[in-house]
């Protein structure tokens, strides 16, 4: 099999660049959300100690924490969906054409 031929193939280039960009974008998004939270813990932790509404004991910190965990699950699901459809499809096309 000619490696150069695969490397020059448009489907391969598209797959490689799309996947890199998607992975980088998703991790930047996740890291941004996470570090916003960590910086809040670092510089104004009292915000996270505010109650959600008057009279409740549940704080914003609990809600934001749970939301971050949920965001982790959602982003994983989005990535897996895309990997299983778009990337696998490109991969398949590439394998058929370079045979």
């Amino acid at each position, binding site marked *: 099999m000619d490696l150069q031929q695969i490397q020059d193939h448009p489907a391969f280039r598209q797959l490689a660049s799309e996947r890199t960009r998607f992975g*980088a974008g998703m*991790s930047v998004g*996740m890291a941004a959300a996470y570090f916003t939270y*960590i910086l809040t813990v670092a510089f104004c932790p009292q915000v996270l100690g505010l109650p959600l509404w008057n009279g409740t*004991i*549940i*704080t914003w*910190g609990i809600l934001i924490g749970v939301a971050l965990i949920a965001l*982790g699950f959602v982003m994983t699901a989005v990535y897996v969906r895309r990997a299983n459809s778009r990337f696998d499809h490109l991969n398949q096309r590439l394998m058929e054409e370079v045979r």
Partner: protein
Amino acid sequence: MISRQACGALLATAFALLSDPAAADALTSAVGTRQSLNATAIAMFLGFVAVSLGITWWAARRGTSTAKDFYAAGAGLKGFQNGLAIAGDYTSAATFLGVTALVYTSGYDGMIYAIGFLVGFPMILFLIAEPLRNLGRYTFADVAAYRLSEVPIRTVAGVNTLVIVVFYLIAQMVGAGKLIQLLFGLPYIYAVGIVGGLMMVYVTFGGMLPTRWVQIIKAVLLISGSALMSLLILWHFGFSLEALFREAVTLHPKAGAIMAPGGLVKDPISAISLGLALIFGTAGLPHILMRFFYGA
């Protein structure tokens, strides 16, 4: 590496058995002293050891003759199975019991750890999972040496792995040793020796195949166990989070402080340092990285 995690699972089940607060207090104070024997916990522990040894025996018979069989457990693993195995590795004694204990003692600050560990997981997926797997190698050093000069890379990777594993293993071995000490009333030094011996038997005879199945069993036990416990706890409070937190604040010596950060993470520098360590540290754990070589 497995039996410490086997022990994690066992400790968790032991916790499930002792889940009322009074018993939990007894458990913490019993470390160091000796506790009266807990027959159910011992039976479950021995059962788990027997099952995992059985799996090792089966794997050894099935053959670990080729490098591929030994390191990557034959590699042909369904995605879902491998996912469970990674989950099993991830919920080690440190993450599962450590975070639970942190929340128990410091309240909200424990949650920062839980979030950090979890956020580290998608980061691994987005950045390193696929490139690692696609190269079709056995170890992380193989991947790093693929494009770079081999000897220095392998030296650095080896030293790195050993440093990380030693520190990680010490914590896990202490936990596992303490568990055996608690369960059987053995002196600590023998307890640690037994745990270490068991680990070596698992991996030497079975390669990576039994560790994978032990992880899968552990993950299923832990996930179903903690789901059941959460459900029962919520049910106890009539499915009202408000009532649950109110009770926690009333009973906890730190009272209202457990609902906000500040107990453990006191200044900005330690908060940022902890945040960085949690999100990128998890991505560097050797026993997590190696699981990505097992996909089909």
